[in-house]
């Protein structure tokens, strides 16, 4: 059944959209990531113009993170305080990212530097997580449960000024590294047009040793706040939010996210980290394939703007 989308200006199959929304929603609920890095290219692939795909993905991400966050909230697996601190940092990073993005065009091939460092970052995080989680799984086989945090242990960045206690996350740390983390993620997200949830999740697990289930819930909450702001900004400035496309994706997405969140709760910490490592590696490889290897067609139509 074809449905004409009023802003994207093309008809798409209703069931295809529901299925796409559902699959990405499942991944979002399971890993605490937004899924925009998968949904946006998928939408562009089926013919949606790039600005509409980017803007409309943010609505889908907002909806799946609402349903995911609520599920984790009910299970007391969401650290509201931690989420707010990360969002505060994210705001700073986003503003810096927007300013940088506008300057970048004048600086030539800086996008090359960013893309290469981003691919490197993803691949190394993915590889490290993969090795660590496989090791932890093998340890568990031998009957030795892996412990990520020793009681009372604090790393140097956690001992910086402005300490804060996060009861739900069972940790106390300086606010500075948390705000910095939020800012870096916000910056990368704005420049590359991705949410960055899949960088927040490993950072909280490994750098701050927050329990996995709480990391996912908190990450979803942070994504929710970010995406609400992003949707409003897109609607006002690029006017590329397609409400019909968004709602179709959302119906699939919220259902998928429910199943994802449930599956996530049933996973052991090591299993979760292994699956996330694989996901991060896949995303890294996708970005790498974009720039390595000869393209099939050197030319492409990058944008079409109708004269009004």
């Amino acid at each position, binding site marked *: 059944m074809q449905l004409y989308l009023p802003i994207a*200006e093309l008809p798409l199959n209703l069931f295809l959209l529901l299925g796409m929304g559902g699959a990405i929603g499942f991944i979002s609920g399971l890993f605490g990531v937004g899924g925009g890095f998968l949904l946006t290219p998928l939408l562009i692939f089926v013919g949606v113009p790039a600005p509409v795909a980017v803007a409309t993905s943010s*609505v889908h991400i907002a909806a799946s993170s609402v349903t995911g966050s609520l599920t984790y909230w009910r299970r007391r697996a969401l650290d509201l305080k931690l989420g707010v601190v990360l969002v505060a940092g994210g705001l700073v990073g986003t503003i810096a990212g927007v300013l940088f993005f506008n300057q970048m065009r004048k600086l030539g091939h800086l996008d*090359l530097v960013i893309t290469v460092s981003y691919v490197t970052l993803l691949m190394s995080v993915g590889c490290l997580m993969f090795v660590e989680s496989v090791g932890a799984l093998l340890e568990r086989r031998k009957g030795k449960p892996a412990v990520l945090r020793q009681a009372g242990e604090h790393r140097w960045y956690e001992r910086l000024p402005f300490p804060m206690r996060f009861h739900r996350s069972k940790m106390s740390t300086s606010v500075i590294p948390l705000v910095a983390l939020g800012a870096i993620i916000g910056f990368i997200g704005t420049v590359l047009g991705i949410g960055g949830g899949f960088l927040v999740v490993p950072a909280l697990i490994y750098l701050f040793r927050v329990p996995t289930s709480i990391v996912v819930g908190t990450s979803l909450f942070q994504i929710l706040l970010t995406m609400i702001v992003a949707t*409003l900004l897109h609607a006002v400035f690029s*006017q590329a*939010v397609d409400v*019909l496309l968004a709602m179709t994706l959302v119906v699939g997405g919220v259902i998928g996210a429910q199943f994802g969140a449930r599956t996530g709760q049933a996973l052991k910490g090591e299993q979760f980290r292994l699956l996330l490592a694989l996901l991060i590696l896949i995303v890294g490889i996708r970005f790498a394939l974009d720039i*390595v290897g000869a393209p099939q067609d050197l030319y492409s*139509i990058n944008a079409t703007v*109708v004269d009004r």
Partner: protein
Amino acid sequence: MSAGFSIPARLASLVLALLALAAPVRGEDLILALSTREVAITSTYTGAEITVFGLIERDARTIARTGNYDIVAQVQGPTGEVTVQRKGKFGPIWLTDDRKKYAKIPLFFSILSSRPLTAVVDETVREKLMLGLEYFLPKPEAQPEKRDLDDFGFRNALLRLRRDEGGLTEDPKSITMIRPNLFTARIVLPATAPTGLYLVNLTVLAEGLPLKTAQAGFVVRKVGFDAFVANAARTEAWGYGLFTVLMAVMMGWIANLVFRKD
């Protein structure tokens, strides 16, 4: 027109000469009618088909012709700016190294004819009637030494990519001659064709020479719900954005209630 004037028979010549004196010799007239003047886009829209009915009108004063008529038409949609980008190699990786913008390019362009275009018109007539998207591109430099190889590649890519996207079509079977002077032309509009005004330029030819051109137009626009949404997104951007966010949050919340086990 007068160059093609011929007298069929000696006896008739006097009558014809008298007629010619009384009124100047006339060329053919072309009368067009469209199956629809408005293509309405609704939620179930998947493209449209428009038929142009045409009549080549002649009367006693019209000069006689030996061969059949040929019909060619070009359909031009709304124009826009198209950006073509090219990838280049930087060490081991491929990145965008150049892009060119082309303004005022018809975003839908279709060439209709009753038989292959090359059999109907030569290069001069083709350019005169602008039967091709290439005639809408900026002219290349006159001096060959100034002509840019880059520019050539980009122009070719633009035409090829527009063809692949369905924004540039050529159909030599889209015009059907019902009678020697009566025909229909079928315009197939893909769902991705932009909204706006479309102009049909239809020319009747004989022996490769254009005799008469007529124009007709139609409009493609969103109606009902789709028009409402597109309008709201443009004129009430804040309200539209807030509504979208609210809907997303509500649906996320409802899904959570529905799936709650406890």
